[in-house]
């Protein structure tokens, strides 16, 4: 009997190993298919003209230049808004609000914002900045992206600051440094690489966001760098072209998809390297 039980347990163990390996193969196949599609359709469509010409109707050999520039502007301004707010609020949670009820609530709110659907952020900024001015604008897009980036920066800033040894802070305090100097000159410096990683991750996340831009900067077929007017962005341009019935526009969309994925992954790898060098 004991032998039968043992062999049944071994058989179960083997069956689970086979099932788990199958799951791994399926997952790999799906993800390989996605990456392969991206390369197979994106690479042939990629040509220099895409980077130099603006979007155009079908048959006119347009590009994505205005969308790429629009994305860079909105991502840049969004990060300029998000970095100070995120870093300072993260510092508040890690250095000033430890153990306080108010800090606990702020942390909870930040966590909810971190995982809140990005389309809701778009609706929020729409009611705040678009419905009130009756005009879609690039600046509204940048603000929506900032709202998405802020909780990511808060989370990493707080995590990285809490990794800084207390003894380091105490040593500085013992030398007579006031708290703000302890935080800025000791804690920030020690956690700097990690905080930079968080900022890069936030940038990568924001660069690929489409939904919040649909109702804020709207998209624009023409070349425009005015923050008060609707502004094109790469994700929205890809969405518009990919859902059009024209083969040439769909091809440009795939080229754009490849550009945006490579960009996002490059920023992510850069972020991983920043952490790696510190360790």
């Amino acid at each position: 009997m004991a032998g039968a039980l043992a062999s049944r347990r071994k058989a179960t163990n083997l069956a689970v190993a086979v099932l788990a390996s199958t799951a791994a193969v399926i997952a790999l196949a799906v993800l390989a298919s996605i990456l392969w599609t991206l390369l197979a359709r994106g690479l042939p469509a990629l040509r220099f003209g895409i980077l130099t010409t603006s979007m155009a109707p079908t048959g006119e050999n347009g590009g994505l230049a205005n969308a790429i520039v629009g994305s860079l502007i909105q991502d840049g301004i969004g990060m300029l808004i998000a970095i100070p707010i995120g870093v300072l609020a993260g510092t508040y949670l890690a250095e000033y609000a430890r153990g306080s009820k108010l800090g606990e609530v702020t942390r909870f709110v930040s966590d909810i914002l971190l995982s809140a659907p990005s389309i809701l952020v778009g609706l929020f900024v729409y009611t705040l900045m678009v419905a009130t001015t009756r005009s879609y604008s690039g600046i509204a897009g940048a603000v929506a992206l900032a709202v998405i980036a802020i909780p990511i920066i808060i989370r990493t800033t707080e995590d990285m600051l809490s990794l800084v040894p207390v003894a380091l802070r105490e040593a500085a305090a013992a030398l007579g440094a006031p708290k703000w100097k302890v935080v800025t000159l000791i804690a920030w410096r020690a956690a700097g690489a990690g905080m930079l990683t968080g900022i890069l991750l936030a940038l990568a996340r924001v660069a690929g966001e489409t939904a919040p831009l649909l109702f804020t900067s709207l998209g624009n077929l023409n070349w425009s760098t005015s923050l008060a007017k609707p502004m094109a962005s790469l994700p929205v341009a890809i969405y518009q072209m990919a859902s059009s019935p024209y083969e040439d526009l769909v091809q440009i969309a795939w080229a754009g998809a490849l550009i945006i994925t490579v960009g996002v992954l490059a920023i992510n790898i850069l972020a991983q390297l920043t952490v790696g060098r510190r360790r």
Partner: protein
Amino acid sequence: MTDITAIDLLPAASGRPRRSLGAERLFGGSVTAMGMIVLGLLSAIIVMLAIGAWPTFRSFGLAFFWNPVWDSVADKYGAGVMVYGTLLSSAIALLIAVPLAVGVAYFLTELAPQAFRRPVGIVIQLLAAIPSIIYGMWGFFVLAPLLAAHFILDVADLFAHVPVLNKVFDYGSGNSVFTAGLVLAAMILPLITAMFVEILAATPVVLKESVYGLGATRFEVVRHVAVPYGRRAMIGAVMLGLGRALGETMAVTFVIGNATRLSPNLFAQGATIASTIANEFSEAGFGSMKLAALLGLGLTLFIISFIVLAASRALVAPRVVS
């Protein structure tokens, strides 16, 4: 990190020259102010959505949340169809992604050679970072045609004469609630897998070794030690994946067909809350009832995802950024 240390007891620059005291107040003040801005952000989102959606609730009452009528022509709106589509597509996504994630996590933590684990872990992290619009395009241009050609007709034929199942798996199109569920599954798979790997790897080695010492197999150790040890965190991770799926816009909008009518058929076109907002927003003028109804949909989505996220946080999902 709730331990109070000597730093927290440090008097704010007491007995320092006045200049330093000013700097201390300035820095402490601005840091706290930013914290409060973030604190106010969530209430601002709720308030603005509620104000914008107010005309809908005044006209249709609380029945808006479940009424399955979405008629732009008659200007009558209810969220029923979209709530159904949102919950259904997310449920399909979880049913497919969670078993796969468990399998992949088991493979990576128990079966794969040690040298293999770190690079694969990094690849999973990178896949989780791919913008969701890419998953949507893949679903629309690759998966949906594939399903239409090789799956939907066969399955519908198979169940054609089985009661109930012939309604659930009826003839339909490649763009459907089912396809949306599959795309969502592909999208949340890397996210959930990454968290599962982290949870399973966090089991104390001593605990596992002591059960190996009793003669347990690899599977028994995971089943009876690692999984019970990380159960709460694993449920939290699933809830976090669910939260992502519920609110996903781009991956779904491409493949769900955006049809605002109720159908038990998984292969029929449908709509989620997020896909409807994205798809119909351009038709809603400033101050129109339709705009209020779309903001009402947003509020509905907020309530659903808030419940899921609060549950996930209560169950302590690992803190994963991206």
